[in-house]
């Protein structure tokens, strides 16, 4: 059974989505239980697959329909995709546990259909990560994109226009990717990633204009999907209006998986040599990434809406990831992959905290932070951990990823990127200290004026404890522990997982 684990990771959430649609009459409790059971099983299979990878220290291949690749489709789980699979399944499971109260608050009816979309999104993300076939990746990309449109449009307020924008931009991105795949297929005649890599390394294709166009289209498509700096405008608007659970699921995972696809395309399908010596865009991308890091944080600084703030922080983090991947040094690549994991966890952490605050106070602005330490002490501590990680303070994983990224940038001589990293860390510190100020003293412009939130707490006087329900606290605390744990075991993570996935040619 263990050798069937790769496919079970993907199929279990899929079947759960279909069953959730069919069993609407069994009630919300059943839907919640089924979703959690399916995601836990999927996480178990992901861990089993990762263990199998670690066991043999080589990639696990799974032939679908028993056809040998490249005729059939295969799943490839190596160190990189194994870790990302565990990250996705883990984050999804935590969000599913978290969703007990907020999801039923946001979806008064037909909760089972909401959960079905939830499971479909997770299926798409897991499938994209595990697949070894470029066209299959497109199909799964569209599944996750479609279900994310559905989930985002279920938000509160006028989310429909933002979702429509996201749909248009997302379709352009996916279609660029598809066209790029077409260019690669026309030049090579195959769709399997491993075989593509082999054929593309032939000298005549290294010089080919069409291959270069194919690469450009694929990377552009992925950049649109991952909201790299000039193409980022859709992200904060779409995320800020989403329902709480939707934001917790989509914000940490969608962009990270897109970054993973970028890494896959760059280093598995193409090679480090092709990208850094023939394409030679590194300079440009580093500048874009640096701008993203600074502009993202600056714009986040200007926001009052908590989730919009987090949305722009994601834009900045994407800058770190893209920059790290294009530094062309081993430390940069390590930093990018490590930051992918770290950022997934810390974004999840912060979105969960904000979701819990919104759940309790009903406010989405910075004013909701007022008296957070008195009212929701556990949530506040989790918030501190997440914030420390985004700023990059030592015991958390955010510090180590920045450490690797800066090390890589120094090795590559990309001083712009070093400066951008430092400046954006400083800005992040300012953002979060300002929120802490609101929490303790309640200034941050007029925010305090609107502060007396739900629950009848005035701005003055004793504040009662109104902690989030345990189903929200448990995943929050677990995420915070994961953020700290990933930081404490940095060395092990890098030695056992990331070092193995560093591509040849650095």
């Amino acid at each position: 059974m263990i050798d069937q684990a790769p496919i079970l990771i993907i199929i279990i959430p899929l079947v759960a989505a279909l069953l959730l649609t069919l069993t609407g009459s069994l009630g919300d409790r059943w839907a919640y239980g089924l979703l959690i059971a399916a995601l836990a099983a999927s996480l178990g299979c992901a861990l089993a697959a990762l263990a199998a990878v670690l066991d043999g220290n080589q990639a696990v291949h799974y032939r679908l329909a028993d056809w040998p690749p490249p005729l059939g489709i295969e799943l490839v789980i190596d160190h990189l995709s194994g870790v990302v699979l565990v990250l996705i399944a883990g984050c999804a499971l935590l969000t599913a546990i978290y969703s007990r109260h907020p999801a039923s608050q946001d979806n008064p009816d037909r909760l089972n259909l909401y959960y079905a979309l939830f499971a479909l999104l997770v299926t798409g993300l897991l499938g994209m990560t595990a697949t070894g076939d470029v066209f299959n990746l497109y199909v799964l990309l569209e599944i996750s994109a479609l279900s994310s449109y559905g989930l985002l449009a279920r938000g509160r307020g006028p989310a429909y226009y933002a979702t429509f924008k996201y749909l248009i931009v997302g379709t352009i991105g996916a279609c660029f990717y598809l066209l790029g795949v077409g260019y690669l297929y026309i030049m090579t005649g195959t769709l399997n990633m491993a075989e593509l890599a082999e054929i593309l390394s032939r000298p005549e294709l290294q010089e080919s204009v069409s291959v270069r166009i194919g690469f450009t289209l694929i990377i552009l498509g992925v950049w649109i999907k991952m909201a790299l700096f000039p193409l980022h405008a859709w992200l904060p608007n779409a995320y800020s209006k989403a329902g709480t659970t939707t934001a917790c699921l989509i914000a940490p995972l969608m962009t990270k998986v897109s970054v993973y696809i970028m890494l896959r395309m760059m280093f598995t399908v193409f090679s480090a040599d092709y990208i850094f010596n023939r394409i030679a865009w590194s300079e440009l991308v580093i500048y874009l990434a640096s701008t993203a890091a600074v502009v993202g944080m600056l714009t986040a600084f200007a926001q009052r809406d908590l989730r919009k703030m987090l949305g722009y922080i994601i834009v900045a983090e994407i800058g770190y990831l893209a920059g790290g991947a294009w530094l062309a040094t081993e430390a940069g690549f390590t930093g990018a992959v490590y930051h992918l994991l770290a950022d997934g966890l810390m974004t999840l952490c912060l979105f969960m905290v904000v979701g819990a605050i919104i759940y309790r106070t009903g406010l989405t602005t910075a004013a909701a932070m007022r008296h957070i330490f008195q009212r929701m002490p556990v949530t506040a501590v989790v918030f501190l951990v997440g914030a420390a990680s985004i700023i990059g303070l030592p015991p958390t994983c955010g510090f180590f990823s920045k450490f690797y990224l800066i090390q890589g940038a120094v090795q590559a001589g990309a001083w712009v990127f070093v400066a951008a990293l430092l400046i954006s860390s400083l800005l992040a510190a300012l953002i979060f200290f300002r929120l802490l100020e609101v929490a303790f003293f309640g200034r941050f412009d007029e925010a305090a004026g609107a502060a007396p939130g739900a629950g009848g707490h005035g701005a003055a006087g004793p504040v009662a404890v109104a902690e989030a329900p345990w189903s929200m606290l448990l995943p929050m605390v677990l995420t915070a522990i994961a953020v700290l744990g990933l930081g404490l075991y940095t060395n092990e993570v890098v030695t056992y997982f990331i070092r193995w996935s560093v591509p040849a040619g650095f």
Partner: protein
Amino acid sequence: MKQLTLIILAACALLMLVAALDLPDWGDPASPASSHLSPAFLEQGYGETATPNIVTVVLADYRSYDTMFEAVVVFAAALIVMVLLRRTPRTRRKVLPQRPQREGRDVVLRGAAQLIIPVMQLFGLYVVAHGHYSPGGGFQGGVIFGASFILLALCYNLQTVLERLREHVVLFCCAGGALLYAGVGALCLALGWNFLGYAALAGLLGITEVTAHSHGILAVEVGVGITVFAVMVSLYYDLASSGDLDEGL
């Protein structure tokens, strides 16, 4: 702004048009796309699955994993449209707008529909079942079968169709078809083969592996057909009535 977009896009277009000169000639049998993988499909496909339509073979056997997600994509679309538009009693418009009643106005249309719809449905089923030997398959057949219901709704009204095909039945078919597909795959997995490895069915049905592939293709095509038929009807229900299921186009 529009001018700027136009200029940028035109420049990109020009660049790519010129770059297209580098592509292999159109229709060249020696191009990599035609000489690398496709001969294997064309030469082995028939022998391994006993199915002459190679497109069906590749769709439902070699790349059956893709096709499963194709069914899931349409299922997701129907689900999303339903989640977005469908108004529950709580959110329904209080007063339904008056729509022109079409009673007794289109005798010719209804007469023609009565003649065409049974033929269409039969043809849809034929296309699903005959996908092994002729163009067609689950997807096309499903669309035609679903279109017959849409035609009924266009010529009569939405209520007529809803009486024959209730909304929860449609939703059940949407998920059921995809579940049938995944179920065939899981059955193969349970029998000790890989997911969707139809050869597993040979032992179960007492047939050769080649025939098992052919039967497996039929089973998943039926699954796709059910899903697609239901999704098309569901999309029409929700989009044409804007989620009220009172009256369509």
